[in-house]
């Protein structure tokens, strides 16, 4: 196999939420550098949720990502249910009900 040189320095990944750069450097067929830089400033969601009501938490966590807001909402609601120790209410038609069915 031919030994290749590949150099990729991609500033700003497109079509995703968040700012990331990819740096790949291959010299003579050997990988020298392979790095994913996250250049966006952190937003500290774990910190800002402290002291918030569980009813506000879902609203806040869904703002982590505008593309996959549903996943963050559901995770927050499930965490709140776990904290309360109520378990999953299996109301017919609810997402939990559909997921619990074999």
């Amino acid at each position, binding site marked *: 196999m031919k030994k290749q040189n590949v150099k990729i320095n991609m500033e700003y990944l497109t079509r995703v939420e968040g700012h990331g750069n990819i740096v790949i450097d291959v010299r003579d067929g050997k990988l020298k550098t392979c790095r994913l830089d996250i250049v966006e400033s952190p937003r500290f969601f774990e910190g800002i949720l402290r002291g918030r009501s569980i009813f506000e938490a879902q609203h806040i966590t869904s*703002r982590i990502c505008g593309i996959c807001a549903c996943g963050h909402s559901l995770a927050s609601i499930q965490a709140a249910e776990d904290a309360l120790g109520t378990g999953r209410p299996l109301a017919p038609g609810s997402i939990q009900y559909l997921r619990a069915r074999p």
Partner: protein
Amino acid sequence: MRKPRVGIFDFACCEGCQLQIANMGEDVLGLLGSITVMEWREAMSEQWGKRLDIAIVEGSITDLHAVKRIQQIRKRSRVLIAYGSCATIGGVNGMKNNFALDDIRKYVYGEQFAAFATEATKAVHQVVKVDYFIHGCPVYIPEVVTVLKNALQGIPYYVPDYPVCVECKMNENVCMYDKNVTCLGPVTKAGCNSWCINSGNICYGCRGLVSNPNEKGAQDVLAKYGIPMDLILKKMNMYNKCKELD
């Protein structure tokens, strides 16, 4: 005549407001017929880097790198639109300002916190001049269309300065307080057609406070329904924390 060149940029945010443009439906065809999108990181790979007629900026400014970037964008664009709550009032990112910066960095990232540079959250207009504001988390698409039409014609757009309750009453909703739920409608800027309350949710105040909120009236309402003051104050600083830096 060439079509106006538009760039869409994002800073610290969830990028859901940009997604609202993609979700516009039929309106997006009319929009794309009247502008040329030169840069839009979330939806296209092309880069432009030269002069723009309109820059649509989403997200709040939370570090020095972002300050430099927004100044560059301001320099090369004729009109700058702050787009979505994070850009116009700081949004949920502003909640970070409730805590001492080093404390919250340490809480989230432990002893290695120094690797994560950050500054107090600022809205875009607190760093550079902004020509148009589109509030909302996420933005309300009919309003976006109106603002873009105004921006393309060069006429100003005034955000309504009356509370959400005005629109909510016209939509004939039952008041949330009558359902024993706290709602920020009485002090929040209108323009969203009381979108959330129409769908059964409360108003979280994402569009920012009206310029002259009726504090006494709000206190009377809270007293009438027996709601503690600190509950509503906490709700208010969910979106409005950055206002203190104005």
